């Protein structure tokens, strides 16, 4: 789950990481109120989960109440790469002496944590990594042992942060690592991490991705959930616990397991079709889940055929069959459904469906056959 900048900053604050004083505003008047409270000059920042908002006019400096009013008015409702700005973050403007970069993420090939620190912040780290990799000090951290202050001190030295910033930065990095681990982040990134002319180090931006698997120990994440994705289909799917990604094609896909779902996309593509979505009903899905999946697909007007590809393992095919029938009894499914059913309890599942098969509810013996049938139906 990606957080908005303001949420990331609030999350950082819980771990003692210094950020600029500020608050959120959903209207021009709220923006003015926050600005008056934190003191001028302020920065008015669009809250969108997409990069490049600065270039798109989503970040403005305001020196007085009139400027706040004007900028807040301009930015609220602005469309930044398809993301409409509905909320602002207003914070006290910081004088910047230097901009650094700091982040933690999982280094999958090395099965350890990877810290990245650079004295060249404020620009895209991918660009720095490409053009001048030596400007990034990489730190591999054993998850068992974590990051201590001594190592952080070596690290800020190696990264050649300005001397006046080093001790504060080292302490901040230890806190950021704590936020990353105790806070169950997939990514905790500060870009830029700034040094002010007064010699203070703090986070001027916050990019945080939370690991949904850790929600069980973070009841406080509930507040972040309210502001999640705008896409109504994805929202609906999420509410029902489905793993759904909207795509542009015409064939609705339902499969159990991410691999099989991806493979289904591939096969549909290979026989000349294109998928309307990726939808993994997960392991152990029951009739309810299957019915919900069909409803989500049904809400997509692009879909002209549905391909249900199930290989039962922990998921039982008889449950899937029941779910299909339940969905058909609950709502009117617009597109024809092609099913391919194999694996655990496949015989039972096929038997449940048998009496209901017709030219809009079809089974096929193999994945390829089913894909071909779905494509021909979609194009009919």
């Amino acid at each position: 789950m990606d957080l908005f900048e303001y949420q990331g900053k609030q999350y950082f604050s819980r771990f003692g990481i210094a950020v600029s004083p500020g608050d959120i505003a959903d209207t021009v008047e709220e923006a003015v109120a926050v600005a008056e409270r934190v003191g001028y000059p302020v920065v008015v920042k669009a809250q969108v989960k997409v990069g490049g908002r600065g270039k798109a006019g989503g970040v403005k400096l305001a020196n007085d109440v009139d400027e706040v009013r004007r900028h807040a008015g301009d930015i609220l409702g602005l469309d930044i790469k398809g993301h409409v700005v509905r909320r602002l973050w207003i914070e006290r403007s910081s004088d910047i002496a230097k901009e650094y970069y700091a982040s933690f993420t999982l280094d999958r090939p090395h099965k350890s944590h990877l810290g990245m620190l650079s004295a060249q912040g404020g620009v895209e780290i991918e660009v720095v990594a490409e053009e001048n990799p030596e400007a990034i000090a990489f730190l591999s951290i054993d998850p068992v042992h974590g990051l201590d202050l001594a190592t952080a001190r070596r690290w800020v030295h190696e990264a050649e942060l300005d001397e006046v910033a080093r001790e504060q930065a080292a302490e901040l990095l230890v806190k950021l690592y704590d936020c990353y681990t105790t806070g169950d982040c997939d990514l905790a990134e500060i870009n830029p991490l700034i040094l002010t002319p007064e010699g203070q180090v703090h986070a001027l931006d916050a990019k945080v991705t939370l690991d949904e698997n850790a929600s069980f120990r973070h009841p406080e994440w509930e507040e972040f959930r309210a502001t999640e994705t705008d896409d109504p289909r994805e929202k609906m799917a999420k509410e029902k616990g489905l793993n759904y990604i909207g795509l542009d094609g015409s064939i609705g896909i339902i499969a159990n397991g991410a691999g099989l779902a991806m493979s289904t996309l591939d096969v549909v593509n290979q026989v000349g079709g294109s998928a309307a979505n990726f939808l993994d009903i997960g392991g152990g899905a029951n009739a309810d889940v299957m019915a919900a999946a069909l409803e989500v697909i049904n809400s997509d007007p692009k879909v002209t055929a549905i391909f249900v590809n199930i290989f039962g393992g922990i998921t039982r095919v008889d449950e899937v069959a029941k779910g299909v029938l339940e969905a058909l009894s609950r709502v009117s499914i617009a597109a024809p459904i092609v099913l391919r059913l194999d694996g655990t309890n496949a015989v039972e599942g096929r038997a449940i469906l048998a009496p209901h098969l017709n030219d809009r509810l079809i089974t096929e013996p193999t994945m390829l056959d089913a894909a071909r049938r779905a494509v021909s139906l979609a194009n009919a």
Partner: protein
Amino acid sequence: MSIFVDENTKVIVQGLTGGQGRFHGLRNRDYGTKIVGGVTPGKGGTDVEGIPVFNSVKEAVAATGATASFVVVPPKFASAAILEAAEGGITFIVCITEGIPAHDEAVTYNRLVEDYPDVRLLGPNCPGIISPGKCNIGITSGDIALAGGPVGIVSRSGTLTYQALHELSQQGIGQTTCVGIGGDPVPGTNFIDCLAAFEADPETKAVMMIGEIGGSEEERAAEWIKLNMTKPVVSYIAGVTAPPGRKMGHAGAIISGSKGTAQAKMDALAAAGVHVCVNPTEAGQKMVEIVRAL
């Protein structure tokens, strides 16, 4: 022969008294797996359809001589269960649990490597392992596997593992062992571990490898195959048509920029001499050809 597990492997089930543990544990026993005990703290002394339940792994190992454990517990308890298994003397741990926090996986993996270097963890979030006719630990339907070899299967994807078994068994091609390594951020066992074991197993004559987009494990495996593998390998990589930058189901399946694309993986594997196929059916057919020509 088979890899990692065989007909003599004694297995305990951590979480045997839970719904899933009971279902799969009994199913594995029905398949012929030597399920010799279960572990549920506080339920020691009871039994599940004749399988004795112990309070701790240590007790279970002492009483049964088990060397393998099947961990079927909720995500919040999985790390502790895995470490308890290692500490209790288990050397092969299969964890099917889905939804374990990435940080828990990272700590658990490294703690095993550092403190219990002789312990192998398979998973988490994997379908498990089946050596057809001998041992089945996990959630794979035993009836889709065919005993007698000569193919080894290793797969990062759960359902595609079944699909691969199915494609081969339907053509009468058996498997020595089928290992589902799972697609989580920090898998305990990786492609190379399995490829090396298959290379060393005299009964395995060819290997099917099912990968997917994201990460670089398939590329690393390709490098290893190029240098070490003498047996033919057939591969399929799922996600050719996946859009970049979106998580496809599990954390592994995400493309960042040009890295981790199916095409990059297929190119690396082809360069290592692997037979690269574009869907599971084609991979199955290719393997049939290879096995028939052996």
